[in-house]
């Protein structure tokens, strides 16, 4: 009798765990779908829906700069999915992208570092990060995974924002794009779901002396103009990292590429707050949430931004 109970308990527990594994992302999936619906509705016809979504934009701006009827998957391009003027200059830059030689450099770095090759035998992995490690009970980003790998092999950590780190990530991202990989973020446990929720709270909480949340600009503010730039949207925001920013690369091309952590730290500074450390739990959970919002979209990096 006791043996039977133990056997059945184990079986039912295993089955229950397997069932639950698919359920920890229920809230995240609801959030992602709601964000997708909002983003698609917002850009369906900006001119027609100006009162609802763009009350302060001029008619000319909406007519000449915001595309209509954008499909959900097109948002993987970031704000170039909707910004007509932005896309014009983007296409010109893309004819000879400044990061091209850096992808090649990333490939050389990969081929010459045995430790990296052994930690990352597959190179089309950009869409699989960040993930929640059950053994470490924390979010692992591509940046933290690379540095952990280097440290394990007795090598020095790389700068988490610029330099070698985004160059290697650009190679991974390019390989993922070439293999038509999609963003595939999983929430395998209650702990992972809690990490996702903390990242979400961080994203939507007002902070800094300007009292802005990330969402102020990239959810409610997406598509609106700041000076001459259209604000990008959260939906599809992480697909194209690392990015080459013209601003970052103006003195030295190799510094032009930056990780998502570098961009987020800059964004949080712009809100008027000291950003969390690039390898902190807060930063990693923020990226986990953001990446989940791009789940199912094509990896589209590296890319170029102003």
């Amino acid at each position: 009798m006791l043996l039977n109970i133990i056997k059945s308990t184990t079986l039912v527990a295993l089955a229950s765990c397997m069932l639950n594994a698919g359920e920890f992302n229920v809230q995240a999936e609801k959030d992602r779908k709601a964000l997708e619906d909002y983003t698609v509705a917002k850009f369906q016809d900006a001119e027609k829906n100006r009162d609802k979504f763009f009350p302060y934009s001029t008619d000319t701006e909406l007519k000449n700069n915001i595309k209509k009827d954008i499909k959900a998957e097109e948002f993987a391009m970031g704000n170039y999915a909707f910004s007509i003027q932005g896309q014009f200059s983007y296409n010109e830059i893309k004819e000879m992208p400044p990061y091209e030689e850096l992808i090649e450099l990333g490939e050389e770095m990969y081929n010459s570092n045995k430790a990296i090759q052994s930690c990352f035998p597959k190179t089309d992995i950009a869409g699989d990060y960040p993930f929640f490690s059950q053994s470490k009970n924390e979010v692992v980003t591509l940046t933290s995974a690379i540095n952990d790998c280097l440290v394990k092999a007795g090598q020095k950590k790389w700068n988490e924002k610029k330099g070698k780190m985004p160059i290697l990530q650009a190679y991974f991202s390019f390989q993922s794009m070439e293999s038509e990989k999609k963003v595939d973020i999983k929430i395998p446990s209650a702990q992972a779901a809690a990490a996702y929720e903390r990242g979400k709270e961080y994203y939507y909480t007002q902070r800094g002396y300007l009292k802005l949340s990330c969402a102020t600009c990239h959810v409610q503010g997406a598509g609106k103009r700041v000076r001459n730039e259209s604000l990008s949207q959260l939906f599809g925001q992480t697909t194209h990292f690392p990015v080459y920013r013209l601003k970052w690369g103006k003195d030295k091309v190799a510094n032009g590429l930056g990780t998502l952590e570098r961009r987020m730290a800059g964004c949080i500074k712009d809100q008027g707050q000291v950003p969390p450390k690039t390898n902190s739990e807060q930063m990693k959970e923020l990226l986990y949430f953001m990446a989940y919002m791009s789940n199912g979209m094509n990896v589209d990096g590296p890319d170029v931004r102003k």
Partner: protein
Amino acid sequence: MKKLYSVLAATGLALVMSGCGSNPVPTPSSDKSEILNEKTLCDVNANGIENVLATAAKYNKIAKANGVEFKRLGMTNTQYIDETNKALKSGAKKVVLLNKKGKATKNSVSVEYATQRACKFAVSALTQAQDGKNTWKAAVPGDGFKY
């Protein structure tokens, strides 16, 4: 019948073990701690510069520990407090603002203004974080944000 009992017992035990039925995602709780009043606390005329600067240092330490310290144009609030303290000790009337590398810029503000700003930054970082616990969901599509 024995088999049925054993299956029922096993199912119950398994549900308890796997945490089924409970919400796996904790909802953020609202902390009911006292809300600080920055106007009263940071009034230089009523409290005096030294006291207001001490208030700034006290609350900024908490803000920093909670990861919500303010930063303006490359200068953290800790730097505001430190630079104001230095100016007070040296008898300077102005506090020179620093750039993101910590080097002096051409810009400066009065000691009174720097003190008040440092205090307001320290206090509002905390009140904002407190308010944020109850307001952030209002911006989430599919949750509090309706369009």
